[in-house]
C-alpha cells in the first residue's frame, strides 16, 4: 500500500524510513523514541490510517487477526532506560524481550515476574496484553507492577502516567489502565516495572490434590495443575521449603519443571472466579484438550487443542460464562472461523467506548482488538 505523502513526510521528518513487509503489503515503521511514534500517529490520524502495534508478533492473534495500513514496531526501543538497582525498579523500552530482561535482572538477584515461557515476547507486548506469570498467586498480577508508562496516544501526544516509585496515588492510574489495553489507547514506548527479589530457592513438589494443597499452604508461589499432574511451587530457604512441603505430605521433586507454554494451534484462556476453578477444569477436560494448565487460586486455565469443533467451543464458552468467567481465544490459527475472541462484552462498554474515543479519536490504534470491536 502507498502511504499518503503527509504520512511519509511525517515519518521522514521524524528520521524514520518505512519499509514494506512483503507478505502483508503493509508499511512498517520502527520508531526509536516516543516522540517519533507520536509524530507518526498524529499524521496517520489526520489521514485516518490504522496503525497496528507490534512487539515480537508471537501473540498477534490476541483480540483477533487484523490488517492495518501501518505497522509500528517496538524493536528499536529495546534498551534499559534507568535501573536504580537498589530501588528494585527498572525502566525499559517496550521492545525489550523477556529473554533480554530476565537474565539481566536475575544476575542481580531480581526478577520482573513477567511470563517467560516464550522468550521472544516483549515487555510492551506482555503489558499491552496484561498477562501475568506463574507467580501471580503469591505476587499479584503484572498490572500491579507497572509503575509508570510512557504512551504515544492516538491523538499524537506523548504522555506519561504514574511514576518510578513503588507507591503512588498521584493522579489517575494510567499505567494500570494501559496494562491490558491491547494498544487501544496508544503505543507503549516504555514502562517502569516494580521488581521483586529472587527467593533464596524455588522448588517444585508434586501433589495429589492441587485444590487441597492450595487450601492448606500459606501463600505458595504457585499451585499449578497441567494435564501431567499437580504441582506446588514453593519459595524460601531450603529448610523452609521442605517444612512447607512436608506440611502437606509432599516431597520436593528436583527434576520437575513448570509446564512449557502451550503450542497447539488453538489456545484458549479460561478465566473464572478461583472458587470455580475445579468446575471449569472439568468442563475443559470434557472437551479433550491436547494440553491444559490450570492455576489454582488464580482462576486461569490455558488450554490447547490441535482441533476443536466450533460447536464444542461455543458450548464450552457458554458453560464458562455461566460460571461467571470468560473463555478468551488467544490463538485459533483460522480453526475457529467467525468466533468472537472475547465472548460476551463486559457491561461497561459505554465508558470504555468513551475512553477509546478520548485517547484515540480517529480510531486508528490497533482498532478492533478490544471486546465489542473497539
Amino acid at each position, binding site marked *: 500500500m502507498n502511504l499518503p505523502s503527509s504520512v511519509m513526510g511525517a515519518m521522514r521528518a521524524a528520521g524514520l524510513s518505512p519499509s514494506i513487509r512483503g507478505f502483508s503489503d503493509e508499511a512498517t515503521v520502527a520508531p526509536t523514541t516516543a516522540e517519533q511514534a507520536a509524530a507518526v500517529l*498524529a499524521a496517520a*490520524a489526520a489521514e485516518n490510517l490504522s496503525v497496528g502495534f507490534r512487539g515480537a508478533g508471537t501473540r498477534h492473534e490476541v483480540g483477533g487477526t487484523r490488517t492495518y495500513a501501518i505497522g509500528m514496531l517496538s524493536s528499536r526501543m529495546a534498551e534499559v532506560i534507568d535501573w536504580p538497582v*537498589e530501588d528494585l*525498579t527498572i525502566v525499559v523500552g517496550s521492545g525489550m524481550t523477556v529473554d533480554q530482561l530476565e537474565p539481566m535482572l536475575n544476575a542481580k538477584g531480581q526478577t520482573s515476574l513477567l511470563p517467560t515461557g516464550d522468550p521472544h515476547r516483549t515487555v510492551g507486548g506482555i503489558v499491552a496484553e*496484561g*498477562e501475568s506469570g506463574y507467580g501471580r498467586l503469591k505476587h499479584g498480577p503484572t*498490572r*500491579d507492577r507497572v509503575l509508570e508508562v510512557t504512551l504515544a*496516544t492516538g491523538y*499524537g*501526544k506523548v*504522555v*506519561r*502516567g504514574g*511514576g*518510578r*516509585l*513503588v*507507591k503512588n*496515588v*498521584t*493522579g489517575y*492510574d494510567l499505567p*494500570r*489502565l494501559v496494562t*491490558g*489495553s491491547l494498544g*487501544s*489507547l496508544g503505543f507503549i514506548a516504555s514502562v517502569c516495572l516494580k521488581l521483586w*527479589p529472587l*527467593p*533464596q530457592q524455588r522448588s517444585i513438589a508434586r501433589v495429589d490434590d492441587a485444590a487441597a494443597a492450595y*487450601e492448606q499452604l*500459606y501463600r505458595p508461589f504457585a499451585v499449578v495443575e497441567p494435564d501431567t499432574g499437580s504441582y506446588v511451587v514453593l519459595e*524460601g530457604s531450603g529448610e*523452609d521449603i521442605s*517444612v512447607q512441603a512436608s506440611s502437606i505430605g509432599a516431597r520436593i521433586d528436583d527434576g520437575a519443571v513448570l509446564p512449557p507454554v502451550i503450542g497447539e494451534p488453538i489456545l484458549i484462556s479460561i*478465566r*473464572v*472466579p*478461583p*472458587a*470455580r476453578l475445579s468446575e471449569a477444569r472439568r468442563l475443559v477436560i470434557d472437551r479433550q484438550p491436547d494440553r491444559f494448565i490450570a492455576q489454582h487460586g488464580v482462576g*486461569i486455565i490455558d488450554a490447547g487443542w490441535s482441533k476443536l469443533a466450533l460447536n464444542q467451543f461455543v458450548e464450552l464458552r457458554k458453560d464458562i460464562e455461566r460460571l461467571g*468467567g*470468560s473463555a478468551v481465544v488467544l490463538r485459533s490459527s483460522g480453526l475457529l472461523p467467525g468466533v468472537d475472541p*472475547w465472548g460476551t462484552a*463486559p457491561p*461497561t462498554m*459505554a*465508558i*470504555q467506548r*468513551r*475512553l477509546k*474515543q*478520548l*485517547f484515540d*479519536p480517529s480510531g486508528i490504534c490497533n482498532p478492533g482488538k*478490544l*471486546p465489542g470491536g473497539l
Partner: protein
Amino acid sequence: MPLIDELVALLGPERVRHHPLDLAVFAKDAGVTSGPVVAAVFPETAAEVAACVKLAVTHGVPIVPRGAGTGLAGGAVPIDPGLLIVVTRMNQIHEIDEIGRTAWVGPGLINLDLSTSLASRGLHFAPDPSSQRASTIGGNVGTNAGGPHCLADGTTVAHILAAELVTADGDIVIVGSDAPDLPGLDLRAVVVGSEGTLGIVTKVLVRLMQNPPNAATLLIGFSTIQDAAATVSRIIASGSIPAALEMMDRPMVEAVEAFVQAGYPTDVAAVLLAEVTGTGQSVADTTSLIESIAHSNNAASIRVATDSAERALLWKGRKSAFGAVSQKAPDYYLHDTVVPRTRLVEVLGQIYEIGERHGVEMLNVFHAGDGNLHPLVAFDANEPGMFERVRAAADEMVRASIEAGGTLSGEHGIGIEKRDLMPLVFNEADLDAQARIRDAFDPQRIMNPGKVLPSGSRCFDASGARL
C-alpha cells in the same frame, strides 16, 4: 421543587441533613480545607444513591461522595456548594466466599470491622491505614489507601477485585470481576484512587488474605536517622521484603510515648518497626537477617516481639502517631510524598533542614520500606501568620522530594490540598491525558469537580490541538 425537598421526599427527613450545625460538621474532612455544603444525604442502597445523583444533576448541584471523612487531602470537601452523598449506612458484609477468599461489602463498612469479623475464618483485608478504626472501605477505595502492611501486599488497589459504581449518569455498573483479567479496559483500576471523581462506589468485592501462621515484630532503636534509613535500604536490597518497615523519629516517639506508653525507647534518634510474617522457618530466618543488618548499621537497641499482645502494643505506638500529635498541638499539617528508597537519607536531611530554617516543629513517622514520607508539622492555627509559615515549609519539603525523583502522594490522595502542585510532577500533556480519563466517566464534571486535577487540565481538543 427545591433539591432539598426532593431529597426529603426520596429519603425521608431523617436521612437528609441540612441544619447549619450538620453542615458545619460536614464542611471539613481530617485535612485543613473546608467548603460549602448544601446538604448531606445518607442513602442505604445503590438505587437510592442513583436517585440522589439524578436529582443533583437535574439541579446542577455538584456531588461529593463521602465515607467517614478521615481523608487528609480535602477529597470529601466540596469546593462549590455541593451535595454530600455519605455512604456510611451502607456498611454490610453482603457475602463471604471463603474458598475464593473474597467478600462483597458495603462501602460504608469500617476497615477494621471487616478484618475483625473475618478473624475466626483466618482471613483479613490487607490494607491497614492507621485510620482503620474509623475510615471506610469506600473511602479506602476512593484514596487507594495504604498502610504499614501494604509494603509487601500492595495498596488498596491490589485488594479490590470489583466495585459497583453509580456513574454521573445515575447508572449502576460493575467494574472489575471476581474472575481474573476481565476482557476489556480495566476500569476498576482507575476507579480505585479516583477520589470520588468517577462515580460513587456502592459495593466492593475485596480480596482477602490468609492470616500469617507466624509473625515477629522488631523494634530497633538507632542513634542517628542515617543509620536507620541505611538499615531500611540494606534490608530491601538483601532480597527480603518484610511485611512492614516503618520509621519514627525522636520527636514522634516522644509524642507517642506520652500518649500511649508503647514502650518505645526515647533515648534514640529514630526507631524502626519491622514486621516479618510467614511460615515459622521463614520468620526465624528473616528476623535474624534483619537483626544482623541492624547490628552492622549500629543499632542501639533491638526488641523482638513474637507474642500477639506485645506485637499489638508495638503496633499501637505506630498507629497512634497522628493522634499523639493532636495532644501536642491543636493542629498539624502533613504531606505524603514518596521518594525512591535509596534517596531516603538525603531527602530526610533536607526536610529537617527546611523545618529548622522555617522555625516549625517537625515530627516524622513514615512508611520507610516504600519511601513514603509523612513530614508532619505541629502548630497552632490561632497564632497569626503561623499557617502560612507551615505551608511554605511544607511546600519546600514537597519540592525537595520531587527533585529527588519522588512524587506528591503515596496514599492520602491529591484532593484539593495538593491539586495545584500537580504540575510539579506532570506536564500539560500528562495532565490532559488524566483529564480524558475523568471525562470518559463524567463528561459533565458533576462528580466531585475541582479535585485531583488543576483547572484547565484538559488543554488539547480531541485531535490533540491546543484548546
